[in-house]
């Protein structure tokens, strides 16, 4: 009985470990594809027009799925996608006029300035996808 229990435990251990490892590598890959703070700063200084998608995939891992969804509604080059965990307090200061930066969030950027009226990406809201679409439609050029 003990041998069988140990064998089952080992199988469960392997499955859980491999699944979690896969999740780690997926998150790392998503993070590697996001814009570094220097690039975001450069875009804002170049009077970027579009949207800013600010994520925090370490704290909210499920929000990485929102990238594809948002890119279905906005052209990829019109969205600045970055992860707040790569930003220092000094980097956050580049967002002029923003006192409290809520994240994960989607915000309109006009001439390199973020609109403080941002959409907080709340995964627990059943209606959130529809509301994201409305947010984008209302603020598109």
């Amino acid at each position, binding site marked *: 009985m003990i041998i069988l*229990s140990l064998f089952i435990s080992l199988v*469960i251990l392997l499955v*859980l470990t491999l*699944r979690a490892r896969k999740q*780690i590598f997926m998150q*790392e890959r998503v993070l590697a594809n996001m814009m570094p703070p220097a690039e975001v700063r450069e875009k804002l200084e170049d009077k970027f027009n579009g949207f800013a998608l600010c994520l925090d995939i*370490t704290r909210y*891992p499920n929000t990485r799925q929102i990238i594809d969804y948002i890119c279905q509604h906005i052209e990829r080059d019109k969205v600045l996608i970055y992860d707040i965990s790569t930003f220092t307090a000094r980097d956050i200061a580049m967002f002029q006029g923003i006192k409290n930066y809520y994240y994960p969030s989607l915000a309109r950027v006009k001439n390199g300035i973020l609109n403080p009226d941002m959409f907080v990406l709340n995964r627990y809201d059943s209606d959130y996808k529809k509301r994201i679409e409305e947010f984008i439609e209302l603020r598109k050029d």
Partner: protein
Amino acid sequence: MKNWLIVLQWVAAIVMAIVFYKSSTQKLQNAYGFYRIISEDYKLISKEKAAFFSPLLAAVEFIVVIWLLTPWMQVWGFIMVACLQVLFLSVLIPRKGDVMKYGCGCFDLNTPREITNRDIVRNSMIFCAAAVLGCMNLFGIGY
């Protein structure tokens, strides 16, 4: 005496199973958050090693839950709990007072949190209970 001890042992096993279930599922659901706690906040091991050991640790915690609730594996469950608590305490004690960006890695993995005496006392209590019950079962004391 025997019945009283058995009841106490099961109550302790269920409480520990709940604690470890909550802890392990959080770590498995946000494996990346736990990996960053291990590699960046605690700076225990390199990122490459943390990518292997952090999911393994969370999975071991989950196995402990199953062992605690399986009568013929319960004694090993208590011993594993005690071993895990020794590991956690050896990591927590030197970092007492430090604020961890993603939490202490115990339960909430997304709130900055300071490691306090409370965390150390809580882990010590679990260690003591698991060690006592594990040894009593292993050596047949009181049964």
